[in-house]
């Protein structure tokens, strides 16, 4: 039933998109595919902010189209293909699960440029881009380690993909470095967006003693539960302070605008090339929201220093010695993680309990 609904709504959205994009030919047409609704206040919301920034930057010279709520899977290929057929010059597909559909469609439309977020497969007309969110996770991990009184940090995770696993590892290592007794409880909800389920997961974690929550899902539901129960939490993808004025310690903010503007500009200038971009706090793709007043000054200073050191390239969140969960060595003392290891990360680091779903 759900599939039928999705298909229908996708078809409907495309019909509208096609009507909307019948403008003048001199414009550069830019398509966006979102996995959630633009009103999720998280992941898709921030990508849409990037799209709006592109419109603002280029005005009449661009025509942007977006399709939201596209499920990862066969539907995605059709949506991307329709956008390509509708004459978009560049198409941003903004979820990990759109990777194979994007490459599939790209093969059939060699003149159209594709940009896939958070993936690792490229082609002559497919670039990938992602943000080093783990740098932000390091900063929030430090704060979490210092702020937890029960030494239990709850982590609401979506799917066991490298992106999410990296976040858990980075946050855990940082928390552990300032609080050796800290424990992480990870709950996988198998969805990016389901406010009810995210809230249930948050409640479950709090019931089991977590007093600081982190999330790698897209809605502000967990933040709200944290506020209600009087504990702390970190926002995801965008500033969620509105949902937890007392609960939010800080938030990792995705800022796609500069990248989207640069890539659209490259298409306009004819200088677009397939690239692999992975930017972090330094270039501004990952932002850290204002620190809450609830954080003591020394912890705030420590977190700010970590943020600035990461931005300056003086600190790498994955610096050895680090062992994998099974005790086998991963990084030797002083060694920093190679990007290849990070991009394909499929293991927990030593100290995290529970097994990683395969």
């Amino acid at each position: 039933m759900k599939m039928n609904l999705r298909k229908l709504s996708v078809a409907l959205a495309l019909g509208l998109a096609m009507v909307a994009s019948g403008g003048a030919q001199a414009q550069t047409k830019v398509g966006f595919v979102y996995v959630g609704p633009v009103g999720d206040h998280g992941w898709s919301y921030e990508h849409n902010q990037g799209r709006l920034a592109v419109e603002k930057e280029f005005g009449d010279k661009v025509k942007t189209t977006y399709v939201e709520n596209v499920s990862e899977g066969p539907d995605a290929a059709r949506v991307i293909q329709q956008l390509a057929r509708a004459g978009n010059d560049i198409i941003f597909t903004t979820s990990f699960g759109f990777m194979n559909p994007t490459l599939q469609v790209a093969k059939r439309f060699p003149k159209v440029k594709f940009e896939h977020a958070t993936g690792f497969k490229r082609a002559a007309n497919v670039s990938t881009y992602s943000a080093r969110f783990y740098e932000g996770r390091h900063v929030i991990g430090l704060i979490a380690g210092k702020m937890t009184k029960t030494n239990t940090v709850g982590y609401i995770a979506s799917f066991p993909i490298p992106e999410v696993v990296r976040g858990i590892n980075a946050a855990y290592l940082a928390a552990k470095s300032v609080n050796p007794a800290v424990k992480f409880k990870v709950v996988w909800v198998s969805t990016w967006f389901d406010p009810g389920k995210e809230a249930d997961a948050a409640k479950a974690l709090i019931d089991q003693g977590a007093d600081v929550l982190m999330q790698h899902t897209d809605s502000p539901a967990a933040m709200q539960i944290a506020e209600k129960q009087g504990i702390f939490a970190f926002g995801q993808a965008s500033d969620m302070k509105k949902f937890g004025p007392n609960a939010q310690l800080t938030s990792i903010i995705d800022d796609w605008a500069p990248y989207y503007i640069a890539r659209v500009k490259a298409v306009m200038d004819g200088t677009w090339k397939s690239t692999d971009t992975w930017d972090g706090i330094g270039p501004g793709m990952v932002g850290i929201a204002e620190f809450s007043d609830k954080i003591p000054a020394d912890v705030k200073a420590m977190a700010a220093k970590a943020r600035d050191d990461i931005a300056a390239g003086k600190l790498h969140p994955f610096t050895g010695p680090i062992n994998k969960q099974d005790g086998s060595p991963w990084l030797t003392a002083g060694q920093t993680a190679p990007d290849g290891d990070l991009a394909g990360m499929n293991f927990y680091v030593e100290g995290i309990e529970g097994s990683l779903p395969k």
Partner: protein
Amino acid sequence: MDLLVLILQGVIVAATPLVFASIGELVVERSGVLNLGVEGMMILGAIAGFAVTLGTESYFLGIIAAALAGAVAAMLFAFLTQVLLSNQVATGLALTIFGLGLSALIGQAYSGESATPLSKIHIPLISDIPFIGPVLFEHDPLVYLSVILVGGVYWFLNKTRAGLILRAVGENHDAAHAIGYGVIKVRFAALLFGGATAGIGGAYLSIVQTPLWVEDMTAGRGWIALAIVVFSAWRPGRALMGAYLFGGVTVIQLHVQGLGVDIDAQYLSMLPYLVTVLVMVVISHDKTRANLNAPACLGRPFFASS
């Protein structure tokens, strides 16, 4: 013990929107109409309930507004399928898509707002009974309303003349028409009820469970409610059970993970759906009984030729 209390409270909260949505749809299907627009009516109820609660600071008005929003959507469906005789399956799907779209449009102004959740009722003495008190008697009023509704529907369908007429219409609309019952009127009334409860179910999400508005926040619960109706073999008591079973497995799997039990999370996520399928298989293994339970005129259009 304390954890168990918290888990059970969580189960009841997770199940309540499903109870509302499925009990309404059950009545609708008992009258012989298949309304696949539950998800759409729920999400309209969610936004209406949230908007009105935020605007008036009255949960009562918010819930009334949610019921009205669901009912209005159901009336649209009723007009299209009962008067204009459009296809019920297609119209129901369209209602869902319409509801999701319209709620997103209305909701733009409300996204980013946050309401205070409805508070729990503390009943002196009863709520203080150890274990049973906090599990059963410390909830928000809507939880009690949902259980009362299920009881009321049971009583209505099985013990009243009006309920008998409604079932007659669902089983054989031609015969019901021939002896003078207004088939269309009965179905309008059933749809009105179904729409209102679906709306309240949606509002439960947006003003109790997660007091905020985000697009698509029902996330498929309307479809689960439809499955629960089939699962229940169109019986109110079983629908309540189905909703609690589904909510229960959803919440318990999250706790199992938090406790560090070594099972892959994907299996646990599957569990609510697997259990639903399994129970449906068990219930329907006796074919004749399963068929007997489904309203005979379910989904068939009615046109009074004389």
